[in-house]
């Protein structure tokens, strides 16, 4: 629970940073904070009580189809999410990196890191 609250607080702080800071780098940092918060939330609520680890044995049917799948997740924790959370962390990293790359090129072309200096297209 504490982790969940921390995660949500981080998300809010991050969004606040994205909305109010003018410096591109700070905005990116805000985004990174949001990302971390989300991952914390995932960790916090991803655990489901009363189920075993997703290891295949006789208790778990491997038949295909949604109904069989439903049966299976009654007994074990769904393994797919945990695999995908890892992916999400990687994706967050990638996006942050790309954002930073953009920031560098924006500094090169626009000679500024202030987001207010990039308002030429509007209306």
């Amino acid at each position, binding site marked *: 629970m504490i982790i969940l609250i921390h995660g949500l607080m981080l998300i809010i702080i991050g969004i606040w940073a*994205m909305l109010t800071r003018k410096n591109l780098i700070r*905005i990116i940092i805000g*985004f990174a904070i949001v990302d971390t918060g989300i991952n914390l939330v995932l960790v916090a609520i991803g655990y489901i009580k009363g189920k075993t680890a997703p290891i295949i044995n006789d208790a778990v049917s491997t038949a295909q189809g*949604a109904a069989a*799948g439903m049966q299976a997740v009654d007994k074990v924790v769904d393994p797919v999410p945990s695999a995908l959370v890892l992916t999400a962390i990687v994706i967050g990293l990638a996006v942050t990196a*790309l954002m930073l790359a953009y920031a560098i090129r924006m500094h090169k072309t626009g000679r500024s890191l202030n987001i207010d200096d*990039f*308002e030429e*297209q509007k209306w």
Partner: protein
Amino acid sequence: MVNPLYLIAVFLAGAFLVPFVDKADRRISLGIFYLALAASVGLSLARLMQADFTAMTESQVFTAGFGAPLSIALGFGFKEAILLSFVNIMGLLAGLYLAKRLARESVQSISLLLLLLLGANGLILTRDIFNGFVFLEILSIATYALIGLKSSKNAMAAGFKYMLAGGLASSFFLIGIAFAYRYTGTLNIDTWINMGVLMSPGYRIALYLIIMAIVIELKPFPANGWALDVYQSAHSGIAAVISTINTGALLFFFYKLLPLLPAEFMPLLAGAGLISFFFSNLVALRQKNAGRLLGYSSTAQTGLIIFVLTGLSGFNLSQSSILMIAAGLFVTNFFAKSGLFWLAGLIKKETTKSWSVLSKNSLLLALFGIFILALTGFPPFPSFFAKVELVRALAGNGAWVSLSALLAGSLLEAVYLLRWLGFAVKKNEEDALIETMPIPKLVSLMFGTVLMILVSLLITTKVYHLSSGMMYPLMAFLAFMIIDFLPMKTKGFIAIGLIAYWGWMFFWGKLLGIGSLFGIILIGGSLVQIFGFMHYKDNKAGLFPLLVMLIFSLGNLLQACTKLEFFLTWEFMTLSSYLLILRGKHAQKAALTYILFSLSGAYLILTGLVLSPSFYHKIPVYLLSDMIQMGLPAAIFLGIGFLIKLGALGVHIWLPESYTEAEDEFTSIMSSVLSKAGVFGLLIVLIMAKDALVANGLITGALGWLGALTAFFGALMAVFQEDVKKLLAYSSMSQLGYIIMGFALMSHLGWVSGLYLAFNHLFFKALIFMAITGVILRTGTRNMYEMGGLIKKMPISFISVLMGIIAVSGVPPLSGFGSKWFIYTSLIEQGHYFQAGLAFFASAIAFLYLYRLIHTVFLGQAKPAQKDVKEAPIWLIIPQAVFIMVIMGISMFPNYITKPISSAVSGFITKPDWLSWTGYNITLASPVLHGNWNGNLVMMVTMGVFGIPLVWLLLVNARVQKVKQFNIVFAAERPDKPWTTHFAHNMFAHYKKALGWLITPKITEFWNNVTEWTHSIAATLSYIYTGNGQTYLLHIFMYVLVIFIIGGVR
């Protein structure tokens, strides 16, 4: 079954292989790139060809050998196969379009494009929500990076804003997934669907966040500022990809998630979609940048598809028909939008106005026209059918607010798109020819266009089962496009032969009652006037295809059976006439006004058709009309729609402008033939709603007064025109007013008078217009005061105009008097005394403008500049001769026209006993009114009383001394410059002093104000797009929050 994993494998392998082999040679990496793209196309098409499309679950593939949710499931059914085929073909075309760029840029961009397609393919295939997230991010990251392909400051800024927005949306998505997982314990979409909607509010909020994240990615108004920047500044090839592939994949993912959502989400999403559609189109009105305009249009279209997917679920519609509507809209936008972006990249012009360079390149202009018309929703493109079905669903279920928003939004869309088309056709001398046309870019463009047309034809024939006869206008258009290189006269004779043959085969003797009357007007009337176009020496490219298409669609109005056929034909007619008007030299504005009024009319007609009882198959509408009785609402919608086409007072302002600015020969057809399509429609409505209208006299009473006022004000405005075509345009409006007045009587005599006038108007107005066409051709001006004394140079034209004005004014012995006699007697017989009085006044006013017409052009003092003017070319004289003979014939023997009209009308309203023919004498012996008219005897007497004095004069006046035109006595002197005494300019100044106050342009002012206000609102709204990335983030945040609060999601 093709394993969808191959698709993913192909892209992944390509993306990883390309950087390696690039070290060797760029050509190898490009080869692998195109190979991968081609393979993906092949795979999706192969799946499409397979016949094993059964239930959804059957086409699922599970990875890693487990069933869901223990593994990731991919769905590869029919829908996925179709969409993937489109997406991957588009990927190939986009790759081709970008070929040069990719050859130059770093190898990463090739990989990125493959990754982008990987993301899109995965997003379409996956049945796992988290997997969907991963593919979404792959798609997004690839897109972000590709925007950087153009390293301008604006592109950078736009990319960064996009990343911020995308990042926020992904955050919502992830949080939503996390909480939803908490409640369901799985991430498989199908498992979620099977669970049903859990009642827990937490779960609902989670779902809300998930779906809103997708909605945000779909760029809804007003949370879409970032997307517009991207469209504006990204490389055109990338913008095309974003607006087609990205949008397609996201929309499909959105569609996949819909079954998860509780029912109360649907109206919210539908509302959001419709708002996005309407307001994006509204704000786009003021947009001058082509790329940004396309962005607005894209977001609008996406909004509309969201609306279709969510808003129609409450109605009694099958899933497949909803999907069909969405698909129609999507496919059109898919090809047209990518084509437009590519065109933008090809001609490299930022503002929409500067697209006039296209006027120098007919191929690109044609492509541009096709894209614009497809987006506007003209047949035969799928968007037309989608909109028809959509209106049917909405109007049929009484969703009036949605329907109004839809139609208003569509109209706004038409405004900016067609205005743009107007800019493009405008010839501008300063524009240089587009010289550099890279072949790959052109290939993409052409291929996309051909695909769009093929898909359109496939849908038209396979899904909507339209008979081939209904497609004749289109086929004729294409056929004449092919032979467009032939000389004008050859084309003219081919057209005449073709239409005559068609008329002979399908119409002659096969039409009944009013059908045969309108057959003569619509087909016969246009046939004669084709001659008029044949005097041109240069090959007027595109004229005959459109003209023939118009005539075929006019004829098809009589063949159309079902509502869809009727409306399709109506739209073909509108489309071809619009493009013909647009051919005028300065007709851009006029054509825009014309098409906007026509489209509004068409929307009303469509709504009316939906509301009316269903038509029978295989029976033409005009025959059917008596078997169906519709209610008042349907009749009112249809009636107003047709009145717009007629140019009734209040909605007439398109009429003078477009008549004036269209090419002269075509104005003749517009006035004499095209307007009769409106007459036809109005009559059909009156027949179909006869019972309801007779029971409620109020509406026909109002209609009658509308007709009377149209007749009166049309005549009055004609009096004060200096432009000869404008004068005639207002005159046409006035004449159509009489027709409306006659029809509104709902009596036998009234309809006879309306139809009689419709015939007469065809003959005399075509006669005058053809003659005036010759005059304009020879003098090179439309201002009457710049002409004068042309009777000596153009005697035949003078005779035509003379006959014409005698017929218009209703002076006996010509047939025009018959129309006056019919209209007055029918009005008085029905007790509409004051309408008769006003009609009388209007007819008297007609003398003013008719005298002005003939005097200032043909009489008075000749201008020295026009002393070498010749008679009009023979091709213009031929139709005139035909019409003069017809007028003389029916004046002499009115029975040939009055009797058939009466018997046609008696099919609907029985001929009263008191109306009878004895010889040529028409006797009216109603209990309330007696009267008679013997056209033949009048003709004889007139010839007698004319002949005797003439003979007398010839006898006593044998030695008449001919003098020159300038030999006049002016205040006892011969004027120095006699032509300056030509009394022409502002001829009726005294009349203006007395009655000019009646024609202060109040109605024009009103419509101008409407335009002005709409644009002002659009401008004000557009200020929400401040250009600041953080503001856009705030928009997104507020958007999600506001809808959450409004919807009360709990």
